[in-house]
């Protein structure tokens, strides 16, 4: 890449971000996500209490000057736990999204390019796997392999990657029949060179938006798993776990569930708003989306 090309590339990216931030919903979304990332990154530096510190004297206190968000049934500070509660979810879902996008994206583009028998057989398999609710696919793996994060990351990455295959394949199909692909084939380029050099740059916009959506679904998925008891182990603070843990006492101490609920919801809504704004700016059509995938 020459300096000039690099400069226009950077300018284009900055232009996209600028255009996203110019939309109120985009700026709002990006702002929320950024705030969450900052809290997750620097949270441990400023939280007032130890997240695991149990205290009999401070059980289920209502929000006050000492405990801004109140305390839970073990006397732990809800503010501290809410600030730290997204770290696990963000780290695991980010890693899993990278895995899902990498294998799903490449396989999808590759299938679009080769077509024929291979494409048909693999897509049949993918469709069959997608007809199982994702929770079940993940749960089959979790039953056999356990619930540590070294299991959750590849398992989430694998099962969410299935949906990415479809998206990447259909995005790439638009370009496969074009002249520049024919030209590359005529030049005798290898298949993987065509995938990486010719097709990937063309579907990159669609895949970036898809990555953002996958990320938000992954956070939902991980939180649901830890709500069901298959995520992180206590006493690690995690929103899903906090909600399931305090659910029984909701009637007496609603703040113990409301704050983690608010934190989780704002993060996911923020990602969705940002992804929508990016999709509009990049001109990616997301309306034909199938629910739940």
């Amino acid at each position, binding site marked *: 890449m020459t300096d000039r090309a690099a400069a226009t590339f950077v300018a284009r990216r900055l232009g996209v971000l600028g255009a996203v931030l110019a939309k109120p919903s985009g700026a709002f979304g990006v702002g929320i996500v950024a705030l969450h990332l900052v809290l997750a990154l620097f949270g441990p530096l400023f939280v007032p209490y130890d997240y695991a510190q149990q205290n009999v004297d401070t059980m289920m206190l209502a929000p006050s000057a000492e405990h801004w968000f109140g305390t839970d049934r073990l006397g732990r500070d809800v503010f501290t736990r809410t600030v730290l509660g997204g770290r696990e979810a963000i780290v695991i879902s980010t890693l899993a999204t990278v895995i899902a996008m990498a294998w799903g994206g490449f396989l999808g583009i590759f299938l679009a390019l080769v077509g024929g028998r291979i494409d048909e057989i693999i897509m049949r398999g993918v469709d069959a796997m997608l*007809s199982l609710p994702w929770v*079940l696919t993940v749960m089959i793996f979790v039953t056999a392999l356990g619930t540590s994060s070294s299991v959750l990351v590849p398992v989430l990455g694998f099962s969410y990657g299935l949906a990415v295959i479809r998206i990447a394949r259909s995005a790439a199909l638009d370009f496969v029949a074009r002249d520049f692909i024919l030209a590359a084939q005529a030049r005798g380029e290898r298949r993987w060179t065509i995938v990486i050099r010719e097709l990937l740059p063309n579907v990159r916009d669609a895949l970036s938006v898809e990555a953002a959506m996958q990320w938000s679904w992954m956070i939902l998925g991980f939180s649901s798993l830890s709500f069901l008891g298959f995520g992180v182990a206590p006493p690690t603070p995690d929103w899903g776990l906090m909600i399931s843990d305090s659910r029984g006492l909701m009637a007496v101490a609603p703040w113990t569930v409301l704050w983690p609920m608010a934190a989780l*919801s704002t993060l996911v809504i923020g990602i969705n708003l940002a992804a929508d704004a990016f999709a509009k700016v990049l001109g990616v059509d997301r309306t034909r989306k199938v629910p739940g995938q």
Partner: protein
Amino acid sequence: MIRLILQRLGAAGVTLIIICIMVFAAVEVMPGDACTAFLGRDAKGTILEKCQLERGLDRPALERFGEWAGGMIQGDLGMSMNRNKPIEDIVGWRLRNTVILAATATLFGVPIALLLGVIAGLRRDRPVDLILSSIAIFSMTIPEFVSATFLILIFSITLGWTSGVVTASYNAPALDLVASTALPTAALSLILIAHILRMVRSSVIDVMESDFVLMARLKGVPFRQIVWRHVLPNSLLPTINVIGLTIAWLLGGMVVVETVFNYPGLGRLAVDAVSDRDLPLIQTIAIILGSVYILTNLAADLVSLLLNPKLRTYRT
């Protein structure tokens, strides 16, 4: 026409077989088997061997698959790992309960979704549409367990209208169950409505912008008649497939919602099965839900084939 239907049936059958093979293979490829999953991964020695002998796990995989698949076809689902009961005894009632909940949510949610979707589509970008669309996006993005918990907090704890958990036992009469499912139904319908509403809205908008609606308007056809004659039939047809997909997708949300409300259905059974590491049971549930997904989509396909002559001439 009949060939097309047979084609769809064939494709559904093939997908079902693929699911069975995949679920079996996934369990086979992973380290350990049903016995190590149940006894703990480091189990060795005589206990493990005895368990494997009892379950017939010492035989080659292909033989076991044949037997398992053969049993499935005859309705013999095998034994649950640690409940020591045939799986069909455990699953039967729960499947009925899940079907009851899904049916209530669908019967309640779909009409509302269609109505609101049409209203939003016809009043595009007006306040009604903006409010409806924002609520839809909101309830689509927040996770099921959050919205379900929130519903309990409002309707059960604050207002005290209804109980927050389902207390009926798994073999209670159907009507008793329906009576206690107000909140789970609401939680499921909320998401169902959100998805279908969005699809109906964009479909209505597409049709409203089409040439034939413009023509009808230019002819001076009254607005009411345009909506009933031209817009509704054309925009609701494509949503049949979406409804099929959404109902099928509902099955996934079921796992969480049933757990939140302690509803005795397949979803909660799946969670219990995972906690007990009961591999045969979770395999069965996966295959049941997979089949339901395929059948729902098949039904949606066939209904839209019957209603829409245009699709019959398309090659698929």
